[in-house]
């Protein structure tokens, strides 16, 4: 039976409630919200004079009205030590979402820490240390002293390469400019840590190396371009579920023809029609369905290609467009180089592409035509190219990324209205760090080094390898063994004997043990192996800046207290640095201790001014006060000026035809097909029956670190789903909801069966990074040459473990595709 809150009324926001600018801290889109807070014993009234909206709340509000909030947008939280009512609701004035809330963002209030209402009580509230066989609370000074002593001792013995780090590099929750700068300054300036990796991959590298090497930054357009494009090309992405309000508020109007007026106004002097869309994805997603509903099937082209063959398709599109003479020759001549070399190297016939991709030749030609055939009147067709994890976590990442950017550049679709070649993004961005040049290229394969017994100390910042790495079965086995050695050693010494404790830990490390410090907002799965937990604050519990997928930078204003003793990551990094300095001085190494100076920040704003303001392009124009005044619309980075009380930003990158290379010319790149590139993939494919495609579900944010404690989510998805075609289910003797094991030579994991008639036979799709079943267990260790993992091309067998578990009884298994009724 569906979960119901049994809430039939909510407190009304009074007129004098405090208002805070909020950007949703979950996905890249960064929808604008407002947080309203007021005393817990007060409320407004239905009369217009007595509520924040100034409207008559004694009447039912109409659809899409701005004056309604759902129970999930309400909570009671602490603010400056007192309980207050909190409503976090979408902001109609924000151009990103125009008042829309997604099923994730509209639960920000409900997924906040609240003692009175019992939400997210699993949040970490004290530093915790392994004592007496379990994690026990302690003071910051005590925890940080232990961290600094063990870290300093290991560095003395092994050098800085003995310190391994896993750290977020993004914006939004578990990131942001303040916190990437704090961690970056610690590990890249005070130290030069090389064995570092990012939250979702086993190395410190870009997910989109190729486009950057070509001089084209990956977030180069604006959301309005999706309303202006003649054709949107969506590659390995599912924006209805993973960039929801970007899709609903900017793509759908174009597909419906509702943005024609905007097109005529912004781009006069050429023919305009409702947008078309090409979706390149082996799977029929709800995005495909929604596009067909809005645009009609004749303006949607779903190219359901063989998994991992996108590069061949784009090379064929490039070749066809070239041969037809549909390229932007003036742009190629003025702003690019190596075009001829690229055309010669990547030449691929339609027939060859059809053979490898499994597509029909006519469909490939149709795609080329929709992308580049000149419009009525001879004007260049405007196409916007948007890709995400199907490419980023897909076969031969670097070359495939290049093949896509080649087509966008050749058709003149970078830096112009209705164009762009962009990643759609996962989290928001918020990267501000000293140079990482010392990390090298390729970067160290950190998870493999940990498996190989390297490193003595591991600092983890908001990462959970147990849920989100590849080769996870082996990783977890080795990691547990190494960290247990240290736990066992710690248990032999009284906790109060600091010297004895450090000696025991260091001795265990010499035997192959690993000492782990986990900084997080919640107890994570990898945290179960850690020896110290340091509790962090999240967005809204601290002031936090980030930018979204069109480089729109906003400040989330602190609207509540962090739980217990937790602190912003940037300040935790600063306090680690302070303790390192003290301990190193005590150890007699004044020169090394001096490197840890400059961390005297008291607030997150101090970190922002030290980092973004001083170091980022245009940063001098940006301060908290100015961002506050820019509200939920902020500005688009980079800032170029501050005028008339406003930060002036940049709507599109490269609109002057100058790219991010030394000579300003974008570089076309060779991208030769070499089959399934990552080691071990072809063997796995030959041996196992099912493609285990994997990715996100609409309802769940990231690895469910908050959603795992949200009743609304867990009622729907107690276990990760695996979507399987009913014919395959019959063959395997499976019923809906059955618990199955997904297994291959690399490991095993579990999921519950969701019958999916639209799934291709022998192509299953499983939720990625779920707490109750990690797909990474069956992803092999193969990466590309730059250590980018390939999660998507994974093959395994499926067999039944058990009938539908109790938690799944009564939930719905109907098709997720909308039908008009």
């Amino acid at each position: 039976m569906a979960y119901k809150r049994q809430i039939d009324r909510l407190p009304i926001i009074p007129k004098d409630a405090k208002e805070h600018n909020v950007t949703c801290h979950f996905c890249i889109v960064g929808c604008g919200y407002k947080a309203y807070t007021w005393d817990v014993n007060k409320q407004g009234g239905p009369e217009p004079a007595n509520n924040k909206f100034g409207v008559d709340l004694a009447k039912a509000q109409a659809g899409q009205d701005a004056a309604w909030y759902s129970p999930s947008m309400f909570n009671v939280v602490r603010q400056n030590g007192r309980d207050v009512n909190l409503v976090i609701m979408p902001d109609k004035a924000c151009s990103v979402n125009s008042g829309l809330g997604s099923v994730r963002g509209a639960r920000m209030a409900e997924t906040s820490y609240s003692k009175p209402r019992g939400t997210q009580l699993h949040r970490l509230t004290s530093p915790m240390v392994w004592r007496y066989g379990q994690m026990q609370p302690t003071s910051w000074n005590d925890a940080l002293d232990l961290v600094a002593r063990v870290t300093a001792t290991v560095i003395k013995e092994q050098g800085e390469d003995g310190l391994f780090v896993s750290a977020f590099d993004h914006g939004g929750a578990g990131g942001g400019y303040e916190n990437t700068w704090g961690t970056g300054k610690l590990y890249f300036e005070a130290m030069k840590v090389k064995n570092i990796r990012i939250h979702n991959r086993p190395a410190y590298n870009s997910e989109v190396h190729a486009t950057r090497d070509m001089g084209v930054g990956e977030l180069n357009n604006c959301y309005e371009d999706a309303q202006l494009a003649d054709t949107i090309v969506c590659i390995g992405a599912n924006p209805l579920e993973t960039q929801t309000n970007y899709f609903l508020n900017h793509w759908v109007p174009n597909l419906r023809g509702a943005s024609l007026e905007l097109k005529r106004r912004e781009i006069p002097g050429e023919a305009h029609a409702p947008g078309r869309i090409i979706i390149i994805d082996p799977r029929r997603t709800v995005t495909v369905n929604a596009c067909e509903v809005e645009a009609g099937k004749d303006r949607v082209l779903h190219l359901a290609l063989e998994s991992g063959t996108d590069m061949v398709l784009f090379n064929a599109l490039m070749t066809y467009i070239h041969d037809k003479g549909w390229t932007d020759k003036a742009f190629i001549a003025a702003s690019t180089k190596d075009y001829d070399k690229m055309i010669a190297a990547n030449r691929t016939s339609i027939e060859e592409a059809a053979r490898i991709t499994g597509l029909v030749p006519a469909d490939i030609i149709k795609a080329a035509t929709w992308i580049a055939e000149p419009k009525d009147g001879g004007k260049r067709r405007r196409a916007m190219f948007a890709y995400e994890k199907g490419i980023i976590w897909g076969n031969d990442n670097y070359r495939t990324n290049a093949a896509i950017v080649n087509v966008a550049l050749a058709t003149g679709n970078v830096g112009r209205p209705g164009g762009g070649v962009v990643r759609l993004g996962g989290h928001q961005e918020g990267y501000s760090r000293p140079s990482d040049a010392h990390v090298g290229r390729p970067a160290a394969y950190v998870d493999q080094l940990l498996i190989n017994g390297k490193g003595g100390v591991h600092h983890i910042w908001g990462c959970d390898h147990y849920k989100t790495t590849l080769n996870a079965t082996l990783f977890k086995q080795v990691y547990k063994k190494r960290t247990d050695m240290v736990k066992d050693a710690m248990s032999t010494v009284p906790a109060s004997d600091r010297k004895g404790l450090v000696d025991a830990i260091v001795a265990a490390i010499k035997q192959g043990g690993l000492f782990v410090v986990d900084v997080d907002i919640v107890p994570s799965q990898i945290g179960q192996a850690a020896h110290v937990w340091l509790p962090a604050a999240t967005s809204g519990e601290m002031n936090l800046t980030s930018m979204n997928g069109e480089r729109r930078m906003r400040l989330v204003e602190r609207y509540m207290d962090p739980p217990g003793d937790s602190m912003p990551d940037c300040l935790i990094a600063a306090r680690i640095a302070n303790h390192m300095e003290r301990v190193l001085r005590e150890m007699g190494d004044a020169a090394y201790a001096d490197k840890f100076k400059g961390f005297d920040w008291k607030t997150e704003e101090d970190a922002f001014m030290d980092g973004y303001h001083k170091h980022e392009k245009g940063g001098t124009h940006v301060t908290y006060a100015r961002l506050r005044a820019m509200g939920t619309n902020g500005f688009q980075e980079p800032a170029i000026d501050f005028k008339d009380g406003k930060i002036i930003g940049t709507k599109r990158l490269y609109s002057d035809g100058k790219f991010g290379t030394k000579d300003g010319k974008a570089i076309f790149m060779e991208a030769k097909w070499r089959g399934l590139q990552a080691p071990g993939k072809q063997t796995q494919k030959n041996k196992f029956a099912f493609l285990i495609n994997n990715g996100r579900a609409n309802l769940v944010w990231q690895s469910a670190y908050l959603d795992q404690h949200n009743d609304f989510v867990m009622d729907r998805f107690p276990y990760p789903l695996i979507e399987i075609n009913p014919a395959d289910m019959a063959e395997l003797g499976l019923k809906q909801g059955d618990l199955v094991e997904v297994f291959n030579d690399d490991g095993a994991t579990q999921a519950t069966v969701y019958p999916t008639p639209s799934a291709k036979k022998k192509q299953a799709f499983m939720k990625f990074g779920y707490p109750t079943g990690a797909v990474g267990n069956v992803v092999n260790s193969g990466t590309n040459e730059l250590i980018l993992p390939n999660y998507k091309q994974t093959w395994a067998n499926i067999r039944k473990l058990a009938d539908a578990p109790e938690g799944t009884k009564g939930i719905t298994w109907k098709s997720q595709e909308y039908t008009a009724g």
Partner: protein
Amino acid sequence: MSKRCDLKIDMGRRLFLRGGAAVAAGAAATVAGQGLAEAKPLPALVDYPARKLANVSQLKPNEPFDVAYPDADAPGVLLKLGKRVEGGVGPDGDIVGFSTICPHKGFPLAYNKSDRTLNCPGHYSRFDCEAGGQQIWGQATQNLPQYVLRVAANGDITAEGIDELLYGRLSNVL
């Protein structure tokens, strides 16, 4: 009951409560005990009107029957699903009632007979009428508000409550 009539009743109740509070405040200045004794405490729950929505004889299997509850501004539907479901009432335990305003952005939902779901044309949310209105997929952060129903011996179906907040209202009963 007409819309106008409902509103009058509601307005009367609100005015009454406000008047009571004023009496209490005024009394506090003089004799506190007496004044407080006259004050009417607010109920902890919203008082739902009991409202007859239909008679069992009017429902046909899998044919949506339009209703409104708790007042005329709150459209909903009664369904005879033809199979016993949790929360179902009537002789066959198969009668359910739901709000038909999408709890995401307030768009009207459409019933799909073939799979017994309510679908939102605004942002493609879907709700399963056979599973307590569970959102199959969508952007609402609530499952679909379902009616608490009672069936009398003569077949009259009366609604007496709702299990989630209705879109557009900060109190289900206005």
